[in-house]
């Protein structure tokens, strides 16, 4: 099967600072990869590169068959990113945010209701503006957007952060489900055992590069 993510010596910069200093990596379609490394290793940057938010400075990068140097826009329909910022509209309700996200990708809005219900956001919560929700509920809303969209590539940056026990279990279920459906998942997490149990393999990052598994783990 063609690799979902294929990077060769990929360099990405913020100003003159190298976020990624030559990453070479292949992740097959349908794989769940746990991205691991110390703070500042370039984990978030790797995810941001994969959804075309950080431009490729040099090297080669293709995601789901789209070359990141030329068509980043066509790719975005198939990629879902859950980052530190939830990218939701505070004034809109959970329901409205879901519908807007689905419409903006040209998808039908039927999935909005079931997705909200799946994340435990049905009923009164779904009619509440996101600005009034707790951090955990916002996370759930952002996850509901992903579930409703069901993209081919899931980029999850510390998805467990801020979720309660029930939320975590739900998230684990969702990751297992998307894996079963053949989706590709890049999962950055500091909860190693947890993440390792969910993934097919572990990718170690340090200094903006892929490295061998270190002998001593920080």
């Amino acid at each position, binding site marked *: 099967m063609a690799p979902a993510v294929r990077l060769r010596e990929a360099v990405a910069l913020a100003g003159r600072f190298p976020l990624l200093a030559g990453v070479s990596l292949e992740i097959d379609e349908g794989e769940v990869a746990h991205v691991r490394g110390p703070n500042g290793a370039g984990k978030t940057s790797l995810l941001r590169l994969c*959804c075309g938010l950080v431009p490729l400075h040099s090297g080669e990068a293709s995601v789901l068959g789209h070359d990141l140097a030329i068509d980043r*826009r066509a790719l975005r329909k198939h990629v879902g*990113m859950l980052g530190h*910022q939830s*990218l939701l509209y505070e*004034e809109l309700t959970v329901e409205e945010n879901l519908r*807007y996200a689905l419409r*903006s*990708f040209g998808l039908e809005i039927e999935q909005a209701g079931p997705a909200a219900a799946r994340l435990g956001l049905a009923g009164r919560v779904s009619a509440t503006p996101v600005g009034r929700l707790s951090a955990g509920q916002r996370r759930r809303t952002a996850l509901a957007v992903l579930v409703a969209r069901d993209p081919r590539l899931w980029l999850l940056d510390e998805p467990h952060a801020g979720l309660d026990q029930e939320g975590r279990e739900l998230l684990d279920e969702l990751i297992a489900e998307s894996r079963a459906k053949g989706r590709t998942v890049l999962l950055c997490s500091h909860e190693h055992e947890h993440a390792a149990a969910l993934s097919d393999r572990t990718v170690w990052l340090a200094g903006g590069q892929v490295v061998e598994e270190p002998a001593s783990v920080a």
Partner: protein
Amino acid sequence: MLRDAWLVAGKDLRIEARSRVALNQVVPFAAAVILLFGLALGPDRSVLAPASAGLFWIAVLLSCLLATQRSFAVESADGARDGLRLSGLDPAGIFLGKAGAVVAELLVLEALLALGVAVLYGAHLTGGLVLAAVCVTATVGLAAVGIIYGAVASGLRVKETLLPLLFLPVAAPVLLAATKAWDEALAGTPSGGLGWLSLLAVFAVVYVTIGIVAFGPLLEES
């Protein structure tokens, strides 16, 4: 493109309807501006009435700056560009939608402001059709330039200071043309304003076109 524009405009206007920032902050700001002009120029209506068109349009220009800044502030705080780029929307559609929402907000503001000018400066609002046509065309041009520059400046740490410097000189011809057209209409010779109206139309067409073409390359940067 139009479908996306409609979606974005609807979303922006819905957020405005909920947060009421334009209504609770921008409208009182514009009211304060025309009150202050009155204080600066003195209570003499023979001074204020002839100047009312110019003062009205200065107030609109300043309000347009606030409205465009707000338009990018509603996109999630510091991730405005990230959100817009990840949204899967057509950049030209985003541009048209955001500009359209700003036009709608500013037109409401202009209606209120025109009333204020009539009451405070004693301007006679004659030639209503020309006045309204000028409002629409001038506002489309202003919103287009504002949204392009708003996107240029969004995400920069200096955006609050940079945006006015970029926006105001470009908007100078709009101020001039709209003021002159209003002057003609208020003086009871609305047909004299038609030439200025066509200049405003050219401005609006040019900058809407630039926005449609340039928004893609503009958003693709990080």
